[in-house]
């Protein structure tokens, strides 16, 4: 071949990622490399809208190190799920190797390093504020053209959030582009694979409901991560719809050991409805996770937190149960189901202890 256009940069490792290479415009590959120095060369834009302000309270709460570690604990790291079957571009013949114990361990350990990356949670953020800002009004340009003009700085290596974009309205006003316009234009000039310019049909109410009825929660959330910025009102709305549907139907196993579990738990704790999840954990006999969840609850809702901490630390054996009782008592709502689940849990524990005793006696006798 004398001529041909070849891809310049080849990403040999891209297939290993369980999700598209970058899930939002803010994490485009280029700024992870050494291009940061160039941001000084291009004209600096003034931070607008939400960026000008400090991080919102939601973000602050979510990014607390303790909250993050609790969410990670609650997410779980089941390898069958983390490395579950995923769609690939082309199914190839699998590789089969003959390995010793040592080599097998090494291969496993190598892959387990990727778990953190796969389970990295999409950020939970507050909705972004409108960023239109009139720069100049020029009545002389009124009726000059029947359509608006958009001016985009397409310099290479500028962050999509900082890219300079202005709109000349038909009445002669020059203003900064709105978020929706910015998203569209960024996608036109610097497309992200998997993201569409138009609003995807799957996120419309009827279709979203149909997808959730069929149990495509994970797929919907993945698609939303590609399509929207994390502070996009649409993203927040869709995530909340999916989380609420899971919470109502107690389908927590759908998102366990996925990167969306943290968001789900953060949502149900921050709206103060952790009962269903607590019942689910008690049924699965996961008292450690119950304690984690309650700790998280009292971090976000600090009323009664000191008492909870003291109860938890006072009894070393019955601490978790006492703490759960405290939670049930202190939360004002009726918690009948939760009470029942706790009693069932206690009953199970008692039976197990008795069986152990019987077995011990047998072995001793």
């Amino acid at each position, binding site marked *: 071949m*004398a001529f041909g256009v070849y891809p310049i940069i080849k990403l040999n490792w891209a297939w290993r990622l369980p999700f598209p290479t970058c899930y939002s415009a803010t994490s485009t590959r280029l700024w992870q490399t050494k291009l940061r120095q160039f941001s000084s060369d291009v004209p600096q834009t003034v931070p607008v809208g939400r960026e000008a302000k400090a991080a919102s309270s939601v973000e602050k709460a979510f990014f607390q190190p303790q909250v993050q570690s609790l969410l990670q604990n609650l997410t779980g790291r089941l390898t069958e799920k983390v490395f579950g079957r995923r769609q690939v571009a082309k199914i190839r013949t699998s590789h089969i190797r003959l390995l010793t114990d040592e080599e097998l361990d090494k291969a496993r350990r190598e892959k387990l390093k990727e778990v953190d990356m796969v389970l990295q949670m999409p950020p939970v953020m507050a909705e972004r504020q409108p960023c239109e800002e009139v720069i100049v009004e020029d009545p002389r340009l009124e009726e000059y053209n029947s359509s608006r003009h958009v001016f985009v700085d397409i310099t290479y290596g500028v962050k999509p959030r900082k890219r300079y974009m202005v709109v000349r309205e038909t009445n002669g006003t020059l203003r900064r582009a709105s978020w929706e316009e910015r998203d569209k234009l960024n996608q036109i000039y610097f497309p992200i694979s998997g993201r569409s310019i138009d609003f995807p049909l799957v996120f419309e109410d009827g279709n979203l409901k149909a997808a959730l009825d069929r149990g495509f929660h994970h797929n919907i959330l993945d698609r939303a991560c590609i399509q929207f910025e994390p502070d996009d009102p649409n993203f927040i709305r869709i995530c909340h719809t999916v989380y609420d549907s899971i919470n109502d139907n107690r389908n927590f196993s759908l998102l366990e050991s996925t990167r969306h579990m943290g968001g789900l738990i953060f949502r149900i704790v921050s709206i103060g409805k952790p009962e269903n999840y607590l019942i689910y954990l008690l049924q699965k006999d996961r008292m450690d996770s119950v304690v984690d969840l309650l700790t998280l609850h009292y971090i976000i809702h600090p009323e009664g937190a000191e008492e909870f901490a003291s109860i938890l630390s006072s009894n070393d054996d019955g601490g978790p149960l006492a703490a759960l009782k405290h939670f049930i008592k202190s939360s004002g709502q009726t918690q009948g189901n939760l009470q029942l689940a706790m009693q069932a849990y206690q009953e199970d524990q008692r039976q197990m202890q008795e069986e152990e005793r019987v077995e011990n006696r047998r072995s001793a006798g």
Partner: protein
Amino acid sequence: MSFLLRATAGVAARLPRLICPATTTPLPSSLLSALPNSPLPWICARHRGSMTFFAHLSQERLWKSATSVSNAGRKRGRARGRKMVKNLNRGQVLGFGNTNMVWPGLNAPLFRGKEPVQQQQLPPDPSRKEKLYKMRDSIEKFRQVKVTPLERGWSGNKMPGRSLGPPDPIGDEKFDEFDTKVLEMKQVANMTGTVGRVRRFSILVVTGNKKGLMSVALAKAIDARTALRKARNRSIKKLRFVERFEGRTVFHDFHHQIDSTHVFVERKPEGYGIVGHRAIKTICEQIGIRDLHAKVEGRINLQKVVKCFIAGLEAQETHEQLSERKGLHVVEFQQEHQAFPHVLASPKTQPVRTEVDRVGDREELRFPQLYMDGRVRLRKPKNPPFYTKLPSWEKKLKEMEITRNHRQILEYHWLQRELKGPLPLYQHLREPDKGHLPFSKPTKPEMKPKK
């Protein structure tokens, strides 16, 4: 007057059938001698040009002219598409004709009760002719048996590849879940002292239940139908079990050879389908193998191919056996699972080996090469397109030489300029051929002064 005489002579020979077409007896000579004085010659001379041979040739001779093939022609295959003799008198009964007459004693009884039946003409039957034609055409027409596309074999109306259904039940035992397919159907012959060449049909079939059970049987008979039945029923008595990986493919790639026939078989991922010789494909379908690639090299005698492929399948080693033999874990890495190691089998009767020498080639431990007998299947390179032989192509190459690699070079230098400094993922960049560039000379290694 001379033309008239010649004409009469010609007519004399043909006259009998003009007068009496149904009989072949010639007219008496007295009549012939009287001809020149009769008014007939005039008529004959006038109609000589338009006379048709249908009128004066017998039915047998007419048919022979249309259907006969010479012996030499028969040997050259001219008798294959030959028209068959058709009985045009079918459906005609003595006594019944175009005129609807009642002839007592011929087509009616002589007496009805005590009264004699009268000879009379009835009103004509308008649909009589139609009925006759219909009867003639319907019975004599050659009907080709249509086979639906789903039932068709490998090619046309031929038997190979076609299904024969399950074998006949033996006692109370039924084999409904089995299906038989023809692999080969051919005529074979042997010479005997008394009869000479005795021809028989030889039929090779494969039977399977698509769950691993299969068998192949060969049967011969003089009649094709008998041979098919014999082969089908013989096959159920020779069943054997073929193990499959995940119920869909083979455990490993392998090579097998019988005489000069080599079969190279490759394990394939789900959804690949069966790619290979049509007989191998049919066998795989009957066994229940869904994904596989097979290549036959050497002699492609169908019976040998079948034998070789089945022997290769039987000689497979399961992952458990392999791990037991080698004392190592058999581990699968799938892209769909992000190459997370999945242990297929571990040795059970012995501890796992701790040391493996992968560098020294004393022991073969590479899974794809384990069962290949050191052979590699031939992968033919694609033939170059026809235009590369044309002089215009050479001319084009010469013209384009000056712009060769320009695009890549431009991109490379643009990136270098834009990014200032070493590129990210430098090793993944396509580096152009620096020797051809006017602006980047190959750097010489610095010479260090020797001490």
